[in-house]
């Protein structure tokens, strides 16, 4: 409970910094959107009126306080670009991002954990070398490169998967179609996160394997697989939970890039557009949701610690 309360000032701090950074960026949210030819035809008074209407004529601190005040009433303001309320804008995109991130997390865990354990258990085997090389390559390659390569290979060259989008537009809703569209971006995001996870799992397992209780367990004549899963994994889990907790914000960051590349209509796409349009309310909405998400994931990690290790208790 105390930890929850601490999160509130942290969150306010995050939004304040984001707001300041956005306001300091050069550029004007009104004029940036309008075609120059049209802009030349507009009256300065008209532009000023638009600015007033959106509350952009006030100094930065006042605008921030106004935004906070609105937030306390559940009001997130209006987008400069679309004139829609930010609540609506976010509600439109959150499901898409959750879908992508959820799938990526599952793929990341499903690939990273077992292969990490395997890699640790069979240290210096061919499998270990292969997996190590693979994960290092994935860690080093930027997501946008892997993403574009994936689009080219699977979409354009092999015609196995759609190149982008969340669904085939204009066709009736179909789970299968959705899955086909989800597979490539989620895999790319998932693998990008599986790689570090694999490394940490491997290191955790290796460390535990050297402990005396492992020798004891093996001396008792237990099956190697039982030793590995029941004794080694449970104890290696703590650092892994930390890593997974830290992966979540990274997943969000990766999702921004992945969504851009795959035209995924989620929060990442909104964030990029809002930043380049200098659309303050939209960007603040994204920051808020992401901030809450990260704080929540830290909280979840803390709870998971307690579950994995009975010695840890929170008061």
């Amino acid at each position, binding site marked *: 409970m105390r930890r929850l309360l601490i999160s509130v000032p942290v969150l306010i701090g995050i939004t304040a910094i984001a707001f300041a950074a956005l306001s300091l960026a050069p550029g004007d949210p009104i*004029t940036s959107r309008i075609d120059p030819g049209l802009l030349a035809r507009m009256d300065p008074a008209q532009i000023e009126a638009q600015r007033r209407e959106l509350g952009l004529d006030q100094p930065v601190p006042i605008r921030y306080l106004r935004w906070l005040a609105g937030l306390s009433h559940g009001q997130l303001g209006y987008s400069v670009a679309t004139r829609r309320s930010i609540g609506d804008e976010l509600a439109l995109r959150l499901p898409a991002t959750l879908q992508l991130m959820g799938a990526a997390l599952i793929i990341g865990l499903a690939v990273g954990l077992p292969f990490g354990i395997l890699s640790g258990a069979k240290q210096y085997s061919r499998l270990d070398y292969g997996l190590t090389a693979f994960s290092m390559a994935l860690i080093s390659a930027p997501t946008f490169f892997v993403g574009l390569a994936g689009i080219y290979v699977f979409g354009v060259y092999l*015609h196995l998967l*759609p190149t982008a989008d969340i669904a085939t537009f204009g066709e009736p809703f179909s789970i299968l*179609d959705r899955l086909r569209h989800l597979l490539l971006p989620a895999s790319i995001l998932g693998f990008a996160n599986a790689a570090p996870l694999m490394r940490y799992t491997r290191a955790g397992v290796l460390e535990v394997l050297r402990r005396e209780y492992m020798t004891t367990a093996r001396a008792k004549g237990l099956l190697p697989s039982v030793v590995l899963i029941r004794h080694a994994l449970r104890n290696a889990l703590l650092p892994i939970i930390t890593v997974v907790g830290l992966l979540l914000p990274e997943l969000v960051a990766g999702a921004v890039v992945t969504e851009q590349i795959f035209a995924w*209509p989620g929060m990442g796409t909104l964030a990029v557009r809002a930043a*380049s349009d200098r659309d303050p309310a939209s960007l603040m909405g994204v920051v808020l949701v992401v901030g809450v998400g990260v704080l929540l994931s830290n909280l979840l990690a803390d709870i998971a610690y307690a579950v994995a290790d009975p010695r840890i208790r929170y008061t």
Partner: protein
Amino acid sequence: MGNMSDASWVAAAGRADGPRAEFTRRTVLRLAGLAGVVALASACQAAPAAPAPTAAAPAAAKPTTPPAAPTVAPAPTPATATAAPAPVPTQAPAAQAPAAAAGTTLRFVWLGDITPIWHPVKWETFSQSTIFVNIFNTLAKTDTDLHTVIPDLAERWEVSPDAKTYTYFLRKNVKWHDGQPFTGRDVVFTFSRDLLNPNQVKSRFEGIKGADDFKNGKTDKLAGIELVDDFTVRISFDGPDANFLVDQRDQRNVILPEHILKDVKPDQVLNSDFAVKSPIGTGPYKFVQYVTDQFAEFEAFPDYFKGKPKIDHMIMKRLAANVAEAQVESGEVDLVLRLNPIEYERLSKVASLNLFSVPSPGHTSLIFNLTQPRLQDKRVRQAIYYAIDRKGIIQALFNGRATPRNGAPPGLDGYSDLNPYDYDPDKAKALLKEANFDNSTPLRLAYDQTFPSFPQIWPIAQQQLKAVGIEITLIGEDSTAHINRSQKQLDTFDIDTGYGGSQALGPSESSIYFDCKRLERSEGYANCQVDDLFVKARGTGDPKARDDIYHQIAKILNDEVPRPALWSPNDLHAASKKLGGGFQIYPDPKEQFTKVETWTLAA
């Protein structure tokens, strides 16, 4: 070069198709298993995803290919339709027709931002034009030559000799998408309401007789618009307005339904259902929905007055350039407008595409900041213009696919006695010397580095200017920061650069960039004579006399080069070879869908 012979293309397509279909099917099935979807369901699902059952048929059928229409009247324009749509006799899609029960769907991409308001009161992005041209109509349009006025909602018109009175005779068989008949009352409503909308960018109807009284609420009837009978509208101006006829093509002047919008208060239009969700027009396609950041969907309007569109559905997608390229290459979209011209060589190798490299109405230009003393001397401006090897850059960067401009604004630069400013570094040096150019500090050149090709162009220009003794500092930033600088921070740069504009569409289009009383608009260039001439031309009914005035303007600006255009890069459009019928490329991409009802899409 990109033109393979028909036979080889067809053969290649046949080969490519076979395995592709198989792959898709296999994947679909594998995925189905993965998802644990029951076999029956998966079979149903698979049908639309992959034309699997007929996979063999099209592969075999394609070579014989289509008779359909005498395909694609070769682009009529100066369109250098490079991969000329060799009228491949496209096979009647009879065999596949039953499979595609839902009808044909054209998927296209317009690259660029969109403001999701479906009412001309907030028309600020070109993407909206593409939507408007599909759901609405204007009184008249211009043909592919950009100046011949052709009928749209008006069947014919009469212009009084003094260009003060315009009478439009409207078509009688036009219906709104909700089935109501269209009449002259809709035109009267549209024009008069336009004056009342507070959000409207400077109304085109301000010169209409009685406009001021109507705007100020002194009268509730606009004197200058008269409903002669149900299908005849007469519009009278205080002074002559020679451009009114051509201006009607503009998507801002689409005709709106009185019966739906009459109860919406002018200041509430932006929030109305019509503007946000459900616009009703007279156009070839009905608006179905817009899904934020994803797509807009259209459905053919069976009662369209020029005939029911042949393509049943359209999906306009919003994609980033890289995705659009991938999708047009993989066949997921059928048409992409305004691709990065640098992609021409690569895409020309894609067998399934017709590529169009078309002279564009937009242009790349230098805009001198005349608030900076050094650039107030026209010899310095001329020297800079002489020193940039425009033809060389066009050759190097665009492989020749761009049109060099001279110092007069596009749209006005066609007169033969204008100085072409051919590349001449010696002349540039001489002019600088004559002007006693102060080279103690570099000139600052600002550009939008997110614009394709700009990061390549300006460093080259920098080198060429250095060769004549002008040091340049480049300021590259993202669009928003750049726009802000050029509008509000005139003391932080000397030369601005830009791309776009529709000035080449007509001689009067440039007038908006010149205003001797508002220097921030013209970046410091004050020449009231030019402003007066533009006004005078607009008020001159006689075409010959009007052209003389434009010629005068052209000569002044060609000599003073306040904002000389460098070149117009060709627009690059890619279309699937399945797109045929009356499909042709328009020189103004905003008007691309003008005859969309005649297009066909082979299965």
